[in-house]
C-alpha cells in the first residue's frame, strides 16, 4: 500500500457507495459487502474527499474546525486515512 504523506491525493474508492444518516455516514464496500460507519470527524473527511483532495488540504480543513494541536491533528488524520485505505474505502495517489 502506498504510504500516505501530506502530498498524497485521496480519492474515494469506486467500489463503495455510501449514505448519510444525519451525522453518521454508512459506507458499503461493494466488493466485500461489508458495512462501515463514520461519525464526527470521519463524516467531515468523507464530505471533503467528495472530490479528490490532498492530505494537506484535508488537514487544513479539519484543523480549522476542531480544537486540536497541529501535530496531533496530522497524526490522527494519517491514522484515519490509513485505516480507510486498508479497508479499501479510499485510494491513495
Amino acid at each position, binding site marked *: 500500500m502506498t504510504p500516505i504523506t501530506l502530498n498524497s491525493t485521496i480519492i474515494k474508492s469506486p467500489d463503495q457507495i455510501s*449514505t448519510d*444518516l444525519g451525522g453518521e455516514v*454508512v459506507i*458499503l464496500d*461493494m466488493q466485500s459487502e461489508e458495512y462501515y460507519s463514520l461519525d464526527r470527524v470521519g463524516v467531515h473527511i468523507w464530505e471533503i474527499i467528495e472530490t479528490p483532495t490532498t492530505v494537506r488540504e484535508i488537514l487544513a480543513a479539519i484543523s480549522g474546525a476542531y480544537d486540536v494541536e497541529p501535530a496531533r491533528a496530522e497524526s490522527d488524520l494519517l491514522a484515519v486515512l490509513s485505516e480507510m485505505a486498508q479497508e479499501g474505502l479510499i485510494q491513495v495517489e
Partner: protein
Amino acid sequence: MKSTLTSMSTRQFLVNRLRAYLAAELTPPDTPLAEAVEWDSLIQLAAFHRVAPLLHKSLRETTPGNVPPSLEAYVRSASSRGLLLTGELLRLLKRWEGAGVQAIPFKGPALAASLYGDPALRHFDDLDVLVRAEDFAAAKEIVLALGYQPREQHSLHESFSLFRGDVEIVLELHWEFMPMPEVFPFDPQLAESWARCETVSLGGHKARAFAPEDQLLYLCAHGGRHLWMRLQWVCDVAQLLRTRPDLDWARLMAQAQASGGRRMLFLGLYVAHNLLGAPLPPNIAQSVRRDRHTAKLADQIKRQYFEAPLAIIKPWKETLFPLQLIDHPIDRLTYLPRLWQYNLTHRNHHSKTSEV
C-alpha cells in the same frame, strides 16, 4: 393489521408532514409534536406506507432533537439494506454492460436516486430491471451464473423472478412493462422508452433511467393497479412533478392517450396534486380537475389514507378498480371476461416464460 386503531389525527399528521416535506416548506403546518403524536402508531403507519425514510428526514430537519429512537433504528436498518441493494444493482448492471446487455433499472434504488437523489430516502425491498426481450436469455444466464436461483412460481407474464439467498435479494427481470396486456389494454410502447432513456447517478455510478414522461406514466399505471394503497407511490408522483419542471406535457398527454393510460395518469396526477400539493401546469391542473370520473375515483382513493386501505378491507376491489381505469368503454365491458379467460389459460404461466 392495526390500521383501524390508528387515530385520524395521526393519519392527518403523516399526510401533512409528507405534504410539507415534498413541497419543501420550512415549517409544517401542524401542532407541536410531543403531545399530539402517538409515535408508535405513526411509525407503524409510515412503515406500512413505506414513507418512513421521508418522515424521518422531515423530522430530523424540523425538530432534530425529537426523532424517536425506534424510527431512527428502523430507518438506519432500511438504509443499510438499501445500500446493499444498490451495490448489488450496480454489480449486475456492470456485468450486463460487459456482455452487451442493455438494462434500465426502475423502481427501487434507481427511482430513489432519480427522484430523491439518495437511495436512502426511499424504501425498497427488491430490484427491478428492464431488458430488451431479445436480451432476456443472456441477461438471465448472467444472473444465474452470479449465484441467483430462479423462482418459477413467483414469475409473472412480464418478468422473471430470481433470488440470491445469501443476502436475500429478489431480482425481477422484466422484458415487458405491464402485466397482462391482453386483459388490461395499456400499451406502454417500450420501444420509444428505450430510445428516450436518460442517465442517472447511482451513488456516483452511471445507470440508465426512464425519461420523466415514461417514469410518470409508469408510476401512475403501477399505483393505479394497486389502488394507490401506499402513500409512497403518491409521494413519488409528487416528487417527480416537483423536480422535473422540464416535463414534456404535450408528449406525455399524447403518449397517455395512445397507450390507453389517460385515466390512470389523470388519477395519479389528481391525487398527488390534491393530497400532497404537487405542482401542475395550470392547463393540466384544469383538465385533470374537470374530469368528473377522475374526481370520483380520487375521492375513494384519498379516503383510504384516513380510513382503512381499500384493498385490505375489500380484496375484490383490486380486481374491479382497474376496470374504472380503462380508457375505452368497449375495453371496460370486456375486461372481466378477458381477465377470467386469462386466469384460465395462464395457470402454467412459467412454461411460457421459459420459452422467451
